[in-house]
C-alpha cells in the first residue's frame, strides 16, 4: 500500500508547489516603500514649468501619484479610467511625467484628456528611482501624513480601482 501512497504523496506535494509557483507574479516586485514616508521631491510642473510642486504641498490630504509617459503603451490603456477618476473628483491625482518630452506629454493630455490635478516632470528619472519605479504605469496611494500605503504596478483595471484603490482612499480619508 505504502508503495503507491508515497509516490502519490510526492506527486501531490509537487502539484502544490507548481500551482503556487504558477500563481506568483514575478513581474510584480513588492515595494519596500509601503508604510514608509513618500520620498520628497521638488519638480517643475508640466503646464507651467516656472511653478514647482512637492509632496509636502499635499500634506493633510490623501492623494494618488501616477507615473506615466507619452511613450508608454500601457498608460494609454489605463488613461480613460484615470480621466473618469479625475472627473469624479474624489482624490487629488498627481501625474509624474517620467522621462518624457514636454511637447509629446502636453499633446497626449490634449488628445486624451487631462485627469491630473497637477502634473510634474521628471526628465532624467531621478525621482522615479527614489520611488522604486521600474516600469510605467505605476500608481501610489499616499496618506494624509505623506506615507505610501499602496503601490499599483502596471495599468489600473476597473476592478483594481473599485475594489482596492478607492476603498483604501475612502478608509484613509475617513
Amino acid at each position: 500500500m505504502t508503495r503507491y501512497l508515497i509516490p502519490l504523496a510526492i506527486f501531490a506535494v509537487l502539484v502544490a508547489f507548481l500551482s503556487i509557483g504558477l500563481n506568483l507574479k514575478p513581474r510584480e516586485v513588492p515595494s519596500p516603500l509601503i508604510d514608509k514616508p513618500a520620498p520628497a521631491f521638488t519638480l517643475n510642473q508640466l503646464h507651467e514649468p516656472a511653478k514647482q510642486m512637492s509632496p509636502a504641498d499635499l500634506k493633510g490630504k490623501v492623494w494618488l501619484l501616477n507615473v506615466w509617459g507619452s511613450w508608454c503603451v500601457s498608460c494609454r490603456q489605463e488613461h480613460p479610467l484615470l480621466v473618469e477618476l479625475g472627473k469624479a473628483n474624489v482624490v487629488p491625482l498627481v501625474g509624474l511625467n517620467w522621462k518624457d518630452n514636454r511637447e509629446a506629454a502636453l499633446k497626449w493630455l490634449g488628445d486624451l484628456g487631462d485627469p491630473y490635478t497637477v502634473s510634474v516632470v521628471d526628465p532624467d528619472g531621478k525621482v522615479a528611482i527614489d520611488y522604486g519605479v521600474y516600469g510605467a504605469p505605476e500608481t501610489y496611494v499616499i496618506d494624509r501624513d505623506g506615507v505610501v500605503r499602496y503601490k499599483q504596478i502596471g495599468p489600473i483595471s476597473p476592478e483594481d480601482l473599485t475594489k482596492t484603490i478607492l476603498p483604501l482612499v475612502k478608509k484613509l480619508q475617513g
Partner: protein
Amino acid sequence: MIRVLTLLLFLLPMAATPEDTAQPVEADPVLEKRVMALAAELRCLVCQNQSLADSHADLAIDLKNQVRAMMKEGRSDAEIKAFMTERYGDFVLYRPPVRATTWLLWVGPFVLFAVGLAVMFAYIQRRRAGAAESAQLTPEQQARVRALLDDATSSRR
C-alpha cells in the same frame, strides 16, 4: 576548399563583434570596472533575468548612471546596495541576505540534498539485505537445484 571557405564564412560574424559591442562611456577605467562589478550583483527590474551590467534597458542604464554617480561621490558598495534595496527591495540583489524570510532559500537545497542522500543509502542498504537473503536457498530449493544438476549431468553422458 569549399569546406574551408564555408567555415571561414561562419567565422566572419565573430570577427565583427568586438568593435560592435558597446564601449563604456566613462573614461575612467578603474571606476568603470567597479561600476560593472557592482552592477553584475544587481538585478535589472525590467528584464528580470539579467543583471544591471548585462542589460541595455533604459532603466538599467539610468541605474548604472546612479551607481556611477554615487561611486564618484565616494560612497561604498554597501551604501549603494542599501540605496537600491531601500527603493526596489531585496529583489534587486542577486545574492539575497540571509534572514527569516530567506532561510529556506539558503538552506533548502542542502536539506533536499541530505534527504536525497538518506533515501539513497536506505535504498542501497535494503537492496543489499534483500540480496543476501535471497542468496540463502531453502532446503526444498536446494533439493531442486541438485535434481536439476544431476539431471543435466546424467543426460550428457
